[in-house]
């Protein structure tokens, strides 16, 4: 069984059927690019994978664990949804950075909030242990908890600094999002998603909101992630990049996977009419 396995995803909004039975599989360390014309359901698929939408049908397993099963009709508890979401990261087309925080705080915020819960659990665990064998005094527990917290905070800080270095924004570390260019914002958004160490990172047209001269810097960062063997799903309109970076290309049309395979075959040797049409319309646009 593949690392990520999506089977038979259906999703409709009221009367509009958007996903009509999507199958998608992905190995660890692989990069999949999803291409397809506007309205074919690419964003909806990513949102379903990230638990922002609930598919009407279908299953999703990650690393052997069943994360979603459409046949179970009961709504999932918020808490479990949250835990499941953490398996994935999502980079939005329009960044959605938190405008009131600096670059650094944007990246550290979510891990710091998660740490609170972690610290609480750790404290509980120590207390239970103390109850059992009376080995720890209250003071000792408090001390251990504060050390635990401090160590973790330092780790978050150093991880974040490393990420900022990776995206090449050391000088902007204390800037606010409104002081950054679009390309810089998107790089911060990527770092923010990476800070939670997701198993799979999803991109929804990460360069579509950018001026052409800014796409390069973002694509370079994604490229470097590929070199680290991260598992990624990238929705993109950049054909050249998709061909370059992906191990597999999925072409979606009208809510189904129309064609799928390695980049060479799919892009240079398309079989279905829709894909031939799509590719010619994309290349025409590039030619202008």
């Amino acid at each position: 069984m593949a690392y990520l396995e999506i089977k038979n995803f259906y999703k409709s909004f009221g009367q509009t059927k958007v996903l009509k039975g999507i199958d998608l599989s992905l190995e660890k360390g692989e990069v999949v690019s999803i291409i397809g014309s506007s309205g074919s359901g690419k964003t909806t698929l990513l949102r379903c994978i990230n638990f922002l939408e609930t598919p009407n049908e279908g299953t999703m397993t990650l690393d052997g664990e069943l994360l979603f099963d459409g046949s179970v009709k009961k709504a999932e508890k918020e808490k479990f949804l949250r835990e499941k979401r953490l398996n994935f990261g999502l980079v939005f087309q329009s960044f959605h950075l938190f405008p009131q925080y600096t670059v650094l705080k944007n990246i550290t915020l979510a891990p710091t909030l998660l740490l609170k819960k972690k610290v609480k659990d750790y404290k509980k665990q120590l207390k239970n242990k103390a109850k059992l064998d009376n080995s720890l005094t209250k003071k000792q527990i408090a001390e251990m908890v504060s050390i635990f917290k401090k160590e973790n905070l330092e780790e978050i800080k150093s991880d974040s600094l490393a990420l900022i270095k990776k995206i090449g924004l050391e000088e902007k570390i204390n800037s606010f999002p409104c002081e950054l260019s679009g390309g810089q914002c998107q790089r911060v958004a990527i770092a923010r998603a990476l800070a939670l160490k997701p198993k799979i990172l999803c991109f929804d047209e990460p360069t579509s909101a950018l001026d052409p001269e800014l796409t390069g810097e973002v694509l370079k960062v994604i490229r470097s992630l590929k070199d680290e063997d991260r598992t990624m799903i990238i929705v993109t309109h950049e054909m050249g990049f998709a061909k370059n970076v992906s191990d597999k290309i999925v072409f979606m049309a009208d809510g189904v996977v129309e064609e799928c395979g390695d980049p060479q075959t799919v892009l240079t040797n398309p079989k279905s009419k829709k894909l031939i049409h799509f590719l010619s319309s994309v290349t025409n646009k590039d030619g202008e």
Partner: protein
Amino acid sequence: MDFTTITLKLLEGFLTTCEIFALTLVSALPLGLLIAFGSMSKFKPLKILVRGIVWIIRGTPLMLQIIVIYYVPGLVFHIGLLPRLIAVLVAFTINYACYFSEIYRAGIESISSGQYEAGKVLGMTKSQVFFKVVFVQVIKRIIPPMSNEIITLVKDTSLARVILVAEILKNAEDFVAWGLVYPLFYTGVFYLLFVGLLTIIFGKLEKRFAFVTEGSSAIKVRRKLSLKTKISTFIGSIMIVSAVAIAVIIGLICICL
């Protein structure tokens, strides 16, 4: 009746005015947020109830509400009257909380769903998303309408005199019995100074939140104003306000003589 006595008497009233203002603000700001949540609730009955209350409160005069809260418990239910100041505070708090709630609601609804979703995919809880991500942005957006409403509150405090609370305007009016009209105009100076001060504070707040703007357009933010500009804006604002105040006083004295 010399000028000093009158000034002292007005100051005494002004203290009550400030008291009504401050206590109303402190209680209506959080209550308003609560009402805003109620009016956006997914639980239909609660939403309808809250919106109904807001409609009634905003649809009737504050003066009427003060009178009702002061007299109705005693005259209709025979359980004695509330102390006057308390009655005023209750009426003001409810009234202003309803107005504030609509401002909060507009602010909250103006935040793009992208911000909520960004928080969600980063594993935040609902309350974390609201308080860590959305709330500051809401505050930034509501500062202008809130300042408007708060400035109105300064002047609405004068309605307290309808149940004989000795705020500044009532104290001034009492002098009319002595044949003195100018204290009435003199109160204007107090109101103007107070509102002037608030205007400066709100202006500062707006600047402070300037960076809170979603979108990538490069708005240049001066994060730290230099000390010199700080001092000069401060002195400038004080001068403008005092100039207005002095002009008013001189004008009044001229009229009275």
